[in-house]
Structures are given as C-alpha cells and as structure tokens.
C-alpha cells in the first residue's frame, strides 16, 4: 500500500445515516461515513448491493430520502442552486461512458467549461486539448465518440469530468463495459489521477487497482457497509464472512 501524502484531516464529504428507497425496496440502509480531502476510496460489493446508488447520491443523480450529505460544506437539499454548485465540484465517470454522440470529442469536453464556467471558446479548447494530451488521445480530438474505441471513449469521458476542475471525482464501474484489452489504458489514467492528489470515490471490481491505489476499501452488501479497512487489512485479514467469500470469488478470476 502506498502512503498518501495528499490526505488532510478535513472531511470533504460527510454522510450521516443516508437512506434510499426505490418504491418499497430499501437500497441504502443508513450509510454513515466521511471522506477526507485527497482520499482515494474504493467501493466494492456484489451487484445490487447499493454501491452505485451510494455514489450517485453524492452528486444527487439519486435523491436520498433520509439523513444528510454534506459535500465541501454544502448540504444536499432540493435547492437547485446548491445542486448545481455541487455538480460543478464533483466530476462523474459512468459505466457506459455517456458521451454526447452528437458532439465531437473535443466539444464533449468544452461543453461544461463554456456553458457553466463561462470560459471563452478558445480558452476552453486549449484546456481540453491539454487534458486530451494528458489522457494520451490528443489525436482523437476532432473525431466523434462513435469513431473511437471504448477505452478511448472512457478517457474522453474522464477528460470531460476533469475539465470542470472538480475537487472530487466519482467513478461508477468505469471499466465494466470495456473489452479486457482496454481496461489497463483506463486504469493507467486513473492511477495517474490518484497520484496527482484528487479525491476519488471508485466503484470497481478491479481488485488489483484497489490494492495498489486505495487508502480505504468499503465493502457494500444489501445496502449496508459491512466492512471498511485499508487494502492490506481488507485483503489479508477480512473480518466478515461475506467479505471473505467475495474476496475469494473475485481473486479466483
């Protein structure tokens, strides 16, 4: 495990007893946790355990029905201005990339900076090109998302989120929809991002990535965090039966 010199003690995300229901189905059953500035947390668990729903409540793509979530000092409520403020500070990367198919890769990235941060077109494009350079796909800028590979699309999506200069990045299974040979190019980019000191919440099944990069691993099952620990403890000395089972199943592959 690497020592993370970026972590400070101020929590940037605070969750208190967060509950969420889909109709009668109880998805999140009272999540209480907090994330420090610069922390890298990996969230794992079986499908349907509520892990995706949890990170989606943090930028309010899902609305929680009980409890409080405070992101960078702003409490999430129905107030539209708060939601928009938070969404500018929280970048998100989706499993299915969700790039805008009607815009070129470059315009996918400049859309937010131009419309929300009110940058000039020129400045936005300069920043976008720099980000694409950092993602190692500067040559794909003028193509459309459908014209590039899945791994490249996901890197464009990461660049799109970074272009808003967020303080926090959320990753919702970023490699699950990718062909095996493309997973590593996306993980490389995420690794680089982690070393730059970004606060990251990553939902993933990539246990190698978790062991190498994470400060903390949270294990979700049936809407509850049943175990959270540093990677070394989590993998070598799991406490809970279900965690043991999960680790043995995922490491077999």
């Amino acid at each position, binding site marked *: 495990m690497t020592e993370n010199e970026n972590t400070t003690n101020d929590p940037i995300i605070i969750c208190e007893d967060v509950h969420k*229901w889909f109709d*009668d189905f*109880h998805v999140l059953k*009272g999540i209480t946790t907090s994330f420090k500035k610069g922390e890298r947390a990996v969230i794992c668990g079986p499908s349907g355990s509520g892990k995706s729903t949890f990170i989606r409540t943090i930028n309010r793509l899902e609305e929680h*029905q*009980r409890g409080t979530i405070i992101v960078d000092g702003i409490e999430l409520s129905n107030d*539209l201005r708060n939601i928009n403020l938070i969404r500018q500070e929280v970048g998100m990367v989706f499993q299915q990339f969700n790039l805008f198919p009607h815009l070129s890769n470059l315009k996918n990235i400049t859309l937010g900076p131009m419309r929300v941060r009110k940058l000039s077109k020129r400045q936005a494009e300069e920043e976008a090109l720099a980000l694409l350079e950092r993602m190692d796909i500067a040559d794909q800028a003028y193509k459309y998302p459908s014209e590039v590979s899945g791994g490249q699309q996901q890197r464009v999506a990461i660049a799109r989120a970074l272009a808003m200069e967020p303080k926090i990045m959320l990753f919702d299974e970023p490699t699950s929809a990718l062909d095996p040979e493309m997973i590593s190019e996306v993980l490389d980019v995420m690794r680089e991002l982690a070393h730059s000191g970004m606060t990251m919440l990553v939902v993933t099944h990539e246990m190698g990535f978790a062991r190498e990069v994470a400060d903390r691993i949270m294990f979700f099952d049936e809407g*509850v965090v*049943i175990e959270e620990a540093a990677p070394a403890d989590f993998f070598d000395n799991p406490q809970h039966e279900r965690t043991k089972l999960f680790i043995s199943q995922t490491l077999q592959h």
Partner: protein
Amino acid sequence: MEELTFTQEIKPPSTKKGPIRWLKDNLFSNWYNTVLTLFAIVFLYFLFKGVYTWVFTQAKWAVIPANLQILSVGSYPREQLWRVAYVVYVLAILMGLSAGIWKGLNQQITSAVACIGAVITLLPIHVNTSVREAAVIATILIAVSYVFGRDRQNLKRWVIIGWVLMFPWMMFMLRGFGENAISTINWGGLLLTLILAVVGIVACFPIGVLLALGRRSQLPAIRWISIAYIEVVRGMPLVTILFMGSLMLPIFMPGDFQLDKVVRAMIALTLFSAAYMAENVRGGLQAVPRGQYEAAQAVGLSYPKTMTFIVLPQALRSVIPAIVGQFIALFKDTSLVSIIALSELLGVSDNILGNPKWTGLKPELYLFIAVVYFIFTFAMSYVSQIVEADLGVGKH
C-alpha cells in the same frame, strides 16, 4: 460485525404529500411555473365559462334525441330494425363466450362493450324504448354467455367458426333478400361506419399479406408490382381513391353491370388499407430473425410451409398493435365516404340538417358526432395500449 445483519426494516418515508406540498411541487415549483400556472388558470376559466354557457344555456340539444335513430342506423326501415338487433345479439353472445373461454384481453374488450350497453340502458335522455330494450338484452346476453363460456375449452373451435361465419351472415342478415331486401342506400349512421371499418380491415388483410410477401419476393416482376402498388396508393389521399372507386370502377366493368355505391366504397377502402396493411406486415416480417428461416429450412419445410407455419405467425403477432392502430385510423377515415354522398355517421348530419326543423344546429350535431367518434377511438387506443403491454412489444 454480526449485529449489522439485523438492521431493522424501516418503511420508506411516506410518498403521499399533503395537498399544499403537492401544489407547490406540481404547480408553483419556481417562478416561471407559477406564471404558467396562473396563465393556464385564466385561460381555462374563460374556456370553461364559454363552453358552459353555450352547452347549458344556448345550445338546442333536442336535435340529438329526436334523430338518434337516424344517427345510429340511417334510413334503415323502422319495421326491419329487428335485423340489426339480431346481429347485435349474436355479436354479444360471441363476445361473451370468447371472454369466458380465452379470458385476458377478450375479457377487457368485452367488459368495455358491456359497459357501453349498460350506459345506453341507463341513459337519462329520452330514447326509443326498443333501443333501450335491445341494449338491455345485449348486456344480459354478454353476461350470461360469459358465465356459460368459462371453463368450457371444448367450445373453442365452435366459437372460432362462429366468428368466421359471423361476417357473411351479418351482411346477409342486414341486407335481407327477395322483395323485402333492404337496399344498401338505406344503410347509414354509426351502423354503416362500423360496417365499412370492419369490412375495410378484414378484407384488406389477405391482400396486405400477399403484397408484403410480394415485396420480399425473389421474382423481380412480382416485387416491382407490389412496390409500385404500395407506394402509389400510400402516396395518394383517400378521397381520390374513393372518387376513383365511384368514377373509374364503372369504366372497367361490363356496360350494363351496376355496382352498388356502398360496395364501391368498400372496394376503395379495402384497396386503400391493403397498402398500409402490407407495410405493417412487412415490418413484422423484418422482425423475424433470419435464424427462424434457416431453422425451418433445416427441418426440411418448403417455402410456403415455412411462411405459413413459422414466419407469418410470429410476424403477425408482433404487428397486432400496428393493425389496431390502422383500424383506428380507418374508423376515422370512413367519415370521408360522406364526400361521395354516403350517409355514414358524419354523412347523416346533412340529411338531418336538411330538415327545416333542424337548420342552423350544425355545432350541436357536429359536437355530438365528435363525442361518439372520440369515445370509440379513445377506447380503441386504450385497448391497443393494453395489447401492446400484453405482447410485451417494445420491451427489450
């Protein structure tokens, strides 16, 4: 860690909101919604006020009950109306039996029809007693045959045969024979509307299927004839085809042979809807995966057998909603035959308004006719939504 598994079951916070919260969320959530709501309220106030005063103080509704018979059957002779009643009774029995035997969708459609019957029975306005009587009998027949048909699967085949024979028998029944035969000129009103729509959709079905198969044929001649027919007819308005039916059909017939006006309209409607049916069926054929053809050929079925037993059943099942949609459109389109001087539901309004007693009552009459059309088409589109949900069309 074990205690975590015993998390208490907590109910979700009540989703029922108070009326004030509802108003705030749905009408006044922000400033522009508030402005829109206020504008809409003012608009609705004036609209309702205008409609209310017209409907309840100015309109002369006497024209409707006085002409109810003309509106429903046109100038069908009064003493022959028992023929219509019998057709309705037999239909009621068949519907009730089907609902009992097949349940599901049949049940919903039949109960809808029974409701209409019950409404007519209880209608507060003054209607002809015999009409009320017929409605009562029909409703009871539906109920009785439904109860009788439940759990009698052995009747299945007879009911299907009944439905098939129903159609020619109905025409025969309504027309009569010999000296008392009722000329189709006297068919009118809602009766004619329904007959034209049903004839149009039923008769166009075989032609439509053949055209759809023809369009996919390997033989260029058949393919091009089918394509030309489908595209030409779909490119033309129905009125022109109706006029062609009344002006051109006689040219192609032997000199002394006179085709009945209603029959000409039926032919025109059938030829028109066949082109649309063909396109619907083609959509269904395209939805059948290639693997089905290959599997059928692998088993050794010939082309006609592959089509009849494997491909068409799957294709037709998936286009049922589209066919229902086409029927709704055709039902509305039958109103165009009033332009070639047939007295269907819309056409009879001219006959009624021609009576000096009722001149100037166009708005009342049109509104009533509009309501009748609306009830039928709205009910049918509701049924088609259920069909779609039943078949799971559009679900991946």
